[in-house]
C-alpha cells in the first residue's frame, strides 16, 4: 500500500517540478515585455517622425487585405536601460526614457500586432496610461469605432486617460517631460491636478467613464491637450454629441461645468472688486455643494441649481478692502456669487450651443422624472439647447489668509 502512495507522490512531485520548466503559457518575465505607456492616433499621413522619409513609412506598414490606410498608430514604449542607469547616476538622465513606434492601417489591433515586427519583445498594454487622439481623426470618424479596441481588450485599464489634441498626436509622445518621468506617466499625472486646477476637465472623463457614457447614449466629454514647442498643457474640453466630435469648450466653460457637476475641489474664482472697480479678487474654494434638480411644469422643462460654496480669500489686487468688516465681506461674497453665476451660465450657454449635454441634464431627467424623459427622449437633441437653468449661488468666505 505504501509503495503505491509513494509512487503517486513521486509522480505528482515530478509534475510539480517539471511544469515551471516546460514554460507556462502566460508566464513572461516583466523585463521581457515592452511596456506601452501611451498610444497616439493620427491620420495616416500625419504623425510622422520628424525628418522621416517615405521609405521608412513604407517599412512601417504592412499589406492590408481589407480596409484602407486610414490611421497612424504610435506607441510610446518604456526603455528600461535609461531608468536603471539613471538611478545610479551613471549618465543617461538627459536621455529620453521612452521611444515611439508607429504603423498605419485601419484596425488598431492589426496595427498593434504588426508592430511586433518592430519590437524585440512582446508589447504589453496593462500599464498603459494615455490615449491621445488627434482632432483630424475625430472629425473623420465617430469615437466609438476608434475606442472599440480599448473597450474590448482585456489588458486595458479603465482608468486610462483619453485626450483629444487639436494638432498632431505623435509629438506628444515624443515630448520629454522636464521632471524626468516617462512621458506617458507624466501625461497621465497632469490630469490628477484637476483637484487644484478647475481649468482641467479631467474628473470623471477617463476611459471607463467614456465607455459608460457611450453605453448610456450620453454625450462624451474628454480633456483637450495641447503641445507647442516644449509646453504641454491640458486646457479645456473636447465635447461630443453622443460620440460625434462637436468642438471645444474653453477653460472658463470647463470651470463652469465643474461648478455644476460639483467635481472640482479647489477652484480659484476671480471677481471684480466691489469696492475698487477695475481690480480683481481671488477666492480659493475649500468646500462646495451642488444640487441640480430637474423640474417639469407642463411641457416646460427647466432645471434649478443650488450652489453653496465656502472658500478663503486668497488674493486681492488694488487697495485693501477692509476684510475684517463683515459688511465688506458680504459685498465680497456677493461679488463672488455673481461671478459663479456668470460662469455657470456661460458654461451652460456654451454647452447648449455645441449641443453637448455636458451637465448631465438628460441623465438627471431620466433619474428624477422618468416619465417626462420617456416623452422627450426622442426629441432631446432639439429640446436640450433650449432648456433653461435657474441658478442660485451662496458663497461664504471663511478665512482671509494670514493677512487681512
Amino acid at each position, binding site marked *: 500500500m505504501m509503495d503505491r502512495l509513494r509512487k503517486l507522490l513521486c509522480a505528482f512531485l515530478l509534475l510539480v517540478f517539471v511544469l515551471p520548466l516546460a514554460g507556462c503559457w502566460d508566464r513572461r518575465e516583466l523585463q521581457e515585455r515592452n511596456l506601452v505607456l501611451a498610444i497616439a492616433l493620427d491620420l495616416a499621413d500625419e504623425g510622422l517622425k520628424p525628418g522621416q522619409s517615405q521609405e521608412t513609412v513604407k517599412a512601417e506598414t504592412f499589406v492590408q487585405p481589407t480596409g484602407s490606410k486610414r490611421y497612424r498608430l504610435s506607441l510610446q514604449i518604456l526603455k528600461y536601460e535609461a531608468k536603471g542607469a539613471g538611478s545610479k547616476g551613471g549618465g543617461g538622465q538627459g536621455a529620453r526614457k521612452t521611444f515611439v513606434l508607429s504603423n498605419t492601417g485601419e484596425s488598431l489591433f492589426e496595427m498593434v500586432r504588426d508592430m511586433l515586427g518592430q519590437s524585440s519583445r512582446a508589447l504589453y498594454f496593462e500599464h498603459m496610461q494615455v490615449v491621445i487622439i488627434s482632432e483630424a481623426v475625430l472629425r473623420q470618424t465617430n469615437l466609438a469605432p476608434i475606442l472599440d479596441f480599448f473597450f474590448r481588450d482585456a489588458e486595458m485599464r479603465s482608468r486610462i486617460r483619453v485626450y483629444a489634441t487639436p494638432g498632431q498626436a505623435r509629438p506628444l509622445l515624443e515630448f520629454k517631460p522636464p521632471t524626468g518621468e516617462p512621458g506617458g506617466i507624466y501625461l497621465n499625472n497632469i490630469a490628477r491636478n484637476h483637484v487644484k486646477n478647475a481649468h482641467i476637465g479631467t474628473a470623471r472623463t477617463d476611459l471607463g467613464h467614456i465607455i459608460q457614457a457611450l453605453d448610456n447614449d450620453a454625450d462624451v466629454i474628454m480633456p483637450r491637450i495641447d503641445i507647442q514647442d516644449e509646453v504641454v498643457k491640458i486646457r479645456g474640453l473636447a465635447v461630443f454629441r453622443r460620440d460625434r466630435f462637436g468642438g471645444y469648450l474653453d477653460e472658463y466653460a470647463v470651470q463652469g461645468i465643474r461648478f455644476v457637476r460639483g467635481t472640482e475641489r479647489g477652484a480659484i474664482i476671480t471677481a471684480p472688486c466691489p469696492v475698487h472697480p477695475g481690480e480683481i479678487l481671488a477666492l480659493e474654494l475649500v468646500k462646495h455643494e451642488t444640487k441640480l434638480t430637474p423640474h417639469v411644469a407642463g411641457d416646460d422643462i427647466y432645471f434649478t441649481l443650488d450652489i453653496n460654496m465656502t472658500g478663503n480669500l486668497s488674493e486681492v489686487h488694488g487697495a485693501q478692502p477692509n476684510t475684517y468688516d463683515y459688511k465688506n465681506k458680504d459685498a465680497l461674497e456677493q461679488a463672488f456669487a455673481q461671478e459663479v453665476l456668470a460662469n455657470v451660465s456661460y458654461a451652460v450657454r456654451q454647452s447648449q450651443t455645441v449641443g453637448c449635454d455636458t451637465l448631465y441634464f438628460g441623465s438627471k431627467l431620466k433619474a428624477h422624472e422618468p416619465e417626462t424623459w420617456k416623452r422627450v427622449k426622442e426629441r432631446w437633441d432639439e429640446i436640450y439647447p433650449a432648456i433653461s437653468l435657474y441658478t442660485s449661488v451662496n458663497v461664504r468666505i471663511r*478665512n482671509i489668509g494670514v493677512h*487681512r
Partner: protein
Amino acid sequence: MGNLERKSKMSALQLAVVLVTTCVGGQIILAPNELIMAAGQGAWVSIILGGMLYYTVSLLCIKIGEYYPQESLVEFFPRIFGKGIGLALTGWLWVTYFILYAVILQGLSRVIGLFMFDRTPVEVIGAGMAAVTVYCALQDWGTILRVLQLLMFSSVPMLVGIWLLTFFNFLPENLLPLWPLDFKGVVKGIGISWGMFSGYEVILLLLPLVYRGKIAFAWAVGCAFGCMGFIFVLVVVVAVGVLTVKGAQNVPYPTLIVIRGVELPGTFIERLENYLLVAWIPIVFDTLAMMLYFVSETCRRWLKYEDHRPFVLLLAPAAFILNVVLDTAKLYEQAGKLTNTMGLVFSLFVIPLAYILARIKRRDARDG
C-alpha cells in the same frame, strides 16, 4: 474601592496651575490681533490693567468662597440671590462657557486648518480635538488635574521657549511711543482682554475641592495671574515689536506670523509656526477639557447626580454641533463678541454684586 487616595482634592498651588491652563489657551493666537486693533500701541497696558482688574474680581470670588466653605457657585448663588435668580446667573456663566467651548474649538480648527492643512475639512480637525477633550473630561477630577499639571509643565515652557526665539527679529523701536496716546482704546482693550483671562471663574466651582495649606489662596491665584499676565504681555509686546502696530493689525494671527518670520541660522528647524502650534495645541486642549468639565460638573451639581460623565457625553456633541454652526466668519465673530460681553457682565457686575450681597447676609446673620 481600590483607589487608596481618590486624589480629588488639590492644593492652592494646583488651583493656580488649573487657572493658568484654563485661561492661557486659544487666546494666545486668536486674541492679540483684536486687542492690538483696539488698543494699538497700548495693548500691553490693557493687558496689565485688565489682569489687575480680573485679579481683583477673582479675589472677590475667593472671599465669597470663604463665606460658603465647601460649596460651589451652584449651591451658594441661589442662597445669595434667591433661587430663581441664582439659578439664572449660574446658567448665564454656564451658557458663556458652553459657547466659549464651541468658539475656541472653531478657532482652533480654523488655525490648524489654515496653517497645517490644505484640504482636510475643519470639521474633522474639530472632531479630533473634541474627541480627545471628551476622553479627558470623562475622567475623574483627580485625573483631569493630573493632565492639566502635566501639560502645563511641559507645554507652557515649550511655548515660551519657542516664543523667545522671536527676539531675533525684535526691534524695540517699534514699541515706541511706549505710552499710549489713545486711552479710549486702552479701556476698550481691557474689555477685550477678558477673552484672554476668561476662565478664572472656575474658582467659583473648584474652591470646595481645594484644601487649605500653607499657601494662601490669594497668593496662589496672584501667582497664576502673574504668570498669565507675563505670557500675554510677552506675546503682545513681541508681536508689536516685530510687526509694528499696523502690521499686527493687518494679520489675523500675529503670533504665528511673528514666529514664522524667524529663521534660525544653521539649524534644520524651519517653519517655526508649526512648532509653536505643536506647543499650543496641548494648551488649548487643556482649556477645552476644563470648559467641558466645568459645564458638565455644573450640570451634575444642578441635578445632584453622582457622576458628571453622562453630562460630558450629552453636552459634547451639542457643543461640537454648535462649533460646526459657527463655521461662517460672521457667526464666529459674533459668538466671540457675545461670550466676551457675557463674561464681562458676569465678571464686572454679577461677582461684585454677589460679594456685596453675601457680605450683607453674613453681617445680618451675625447681628441677628
